[in-house]
């Protein structure tokens, strides 16, 4: 297993330890997970896959619950709009 995992969140490069969730990576670089229908930024709330506030687009797939997904090398993560 590699000692670090490199990915991008909204184009910002970040390296995290293996086993780090995508939600955590987004928080570390200060990016919101999604933009609500009224245009306000949202971030993780429950941290355990229940509340769906941490939905992001991962490799083109929207509405991924990022607190339940590990970072993988080369992942392209963007705020869900």
């Amino acid at each position, binding site marked *: 297993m590699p000692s670090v995992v490199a990915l991008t969140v909204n184009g910002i490069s970040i390296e995290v330890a293996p*086993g780090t969730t995508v939600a955590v990576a987004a928080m570390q670089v200060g990016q*919101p997970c999604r933009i609500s229908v009224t245009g*306000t930024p949202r*971030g993780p*709330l*429950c*941290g355990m896959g*229940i509340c769906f506030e941490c939905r992001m687009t991962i490799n083109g797939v929207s509405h991924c619950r990022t607190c*339940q997904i590990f970072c993988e090398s080369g992942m392209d993560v963007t705020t869900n709009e």
Partner: protein
Amino acid sequence: MSNGARRKFDVLVVGGGPAGMAAAARAGESGVHVGLVDDNFSPGGQIWRGGVEGGNPHAAAWMERLQAAQVAKLCGVRVFHQPEPGLLLAETKDTVCELRYDKLILATGARERFLPFPGWTLPNVIGAGGLQAMVKSGLSIHGKRVVVAGTGPLLVAVAASLRKDGVAVLESLNALTKAKGTRWQARFPAFGEIKQEGDFARAY
């Protein structure tokens, strides 16, 4: 779990926390074919999140029993529908799978209840258990400034563990009665002084 899998179990346990792990291990030890389903990456639930690999001896012991009882661990698998008796549909990262069973055990646990307040949807406003889960999922909080607020003894434990992780806990506020505060103080001496101020108690 392979794509589009169809699996059949004598006993299917939904929820891989301590209760689900124990139920699955016991059932497996009696000789039946058992499946243990959980949305998370590994069994352990919220309480033992990260503890299975992280050296929690209780979690490790139950993992060994699951292994010995040949329980099929289906992780990263989320149940979403029961189209008919004896059948559950579940989704993985890539696909949907069918899980058939003779007996079903639900061990889906509990979760925090969030009561809305102005500002509660702002990023960096996080559930107390949620923050702990995120820390166990790699979030670095050393040197951060945190206000802990709400109700329940979990908050006191969260404030204590945050301090241990090098966080400046600016306030630890708990909506409770004086009588309850006194009971907690007696019950959880390790958490330090709990001081009553009006409707709130401050934990130190």
